[in-house]
């Protein structure tokens, strides 16, 4: 089983179930996972201010599904999860809901069982038991784990962009005032495009009008890590108002995964040492913090 952590929602799924669809919105969205041949699991979330009556919701939902033509409908319960099961087209579908008051999140977990796969309530129970919603951390950070990336980012920053292409994953988070940006990347097909050393390639990630203030190399658990910091030059008016910003970056090739990992952080210079560090992990014992 492999863990996915997204928007503070944690779930463990079989190793060969991959995340194929996602939503960036923290208040409303879904994740969809597939095995080799078809979608098998969906996790939907929505934020609501008051705890719902889950039992009544499940009953109402079952009635609605009956009206919609769900075959062999019945209640499904794996406390605290409640829901409805039935047959939709070629799939047996189980839908469960649960509410997490800490973040006001209403979750719906949907299992799709194709005809040839035997419906397993014990498997559903195992997955449902693995679902958790992480509480707010005192350090203001949040854990994410998906698409081969495992990282810690500031909770108040939102997921601005996610590029999820074959061999190329880049998460970009941004503060509401757009002054702080963090990126976490995992890049593959290195033979095809990486024809310069990583310490030179990392310089290509520096934002426009920033100049390098320091570079460094360090070895961490058998990984050669290139570090870089840069500062905006010359300072522009907005920097006088909001403070100058520093760009920090670290990149390395993980020998186990044969992928290039990159973490960057654009942060106000005056807050650089006061903020909790963000971090990126590629494999066991290898974590880089900025």
């Amino acid at each position, binding site marked *: 089983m492999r863990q996915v952590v997204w928007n503070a929602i944690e779930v463990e799924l079989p190793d060969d179930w991959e995340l*194929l669809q996602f939503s960036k919105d923290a208040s409303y969205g879904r994740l969809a996972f597939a095995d080799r*041949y078809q*979608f098998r699991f969906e996790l939907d979330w929505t934020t609501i201010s008051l705890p719902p009556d889950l039992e009544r919701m499940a009953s109402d939902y079952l009635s609605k599904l009956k009206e919609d033509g769900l075959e062999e409908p019945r209640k499904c319960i794996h406390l605290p999860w409640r829901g409805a099961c039935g047959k939709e087209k070629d799939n047996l579908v189980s839908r469960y809901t649960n509410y997490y008051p800490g973040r006001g999140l209403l979750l719906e977990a949907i299992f799709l069982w194709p005809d040839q796969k035997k419906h397993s309530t014990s498997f559903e129970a195992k997955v449902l038991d693995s679902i958790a919603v992480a509480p707010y951390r005192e350090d203001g950070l949040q854990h994410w784990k998906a698409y*081969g990336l495992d990282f810690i980012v500031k909770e108040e920053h939102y997921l601005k962009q*996610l590029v999820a*292409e*074959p061999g190329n994953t880049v998460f970009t988070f941004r503060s509401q005032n757009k002054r702080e940006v963090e990126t976490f990347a995992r890049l593959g097909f290195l*033979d095809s495009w990486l024809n310069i050393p990583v310490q030179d390639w990392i310089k290509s990630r520096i934002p426009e009008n920033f100049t390098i203030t320091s570079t460094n190399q360090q070895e961490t658990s058998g990984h050669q890590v290139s570090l870089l910091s840069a500062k905006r030059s010359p300072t522009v008016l907005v920097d006088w108002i909001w403070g100058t910003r520093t760009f920090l970056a670290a990149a390395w090739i993980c020998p186990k995964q044969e992928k290039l990992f990159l973490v960057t952080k654009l942060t106000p210079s005056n807050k650089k040492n006061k903020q909790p560090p963000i971090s990126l992990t590629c494999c066991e014992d290898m974590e880089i913090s900025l």
Partner: protein
Amino acid sequence: MSDTKQLENDSPTSWKQMLQAVMTHNIAADTHLNQEGRLVITIKNRKPGYLIPPISWVVHFSPTRQITLDKIGTDIWKWCDGKNTVEAIVDNFKDAHKLTFHEARASVVDYLKKLIQRGVVAVIIQEKT
């Protein structure tokens, strides 16, 4: 509204039938390696019916066209041997580039579409059982 994105544009209910298709070379194509070690495929062009005199006196017709594949394309082309299914090719590609199955599937299917459009390979669809 949720901002939903996905690894690929098309998301059918099941892609099993597509994965069970068998890929084969265009037997009418000639191949050779160029000086850079890349595979060059020469494919015969069908002469369009309208290319008769006097049009053919002014419109040039090339009896063949050449396609040069990169290393990734060469590997995929080699695996299209008339025996391998798309799923087997995806598995080979996944192992060669340390990708997940669906990362490899998205890459391979995209590449195969281009090779099919250019007449380099053909697809044998297995009947649904």
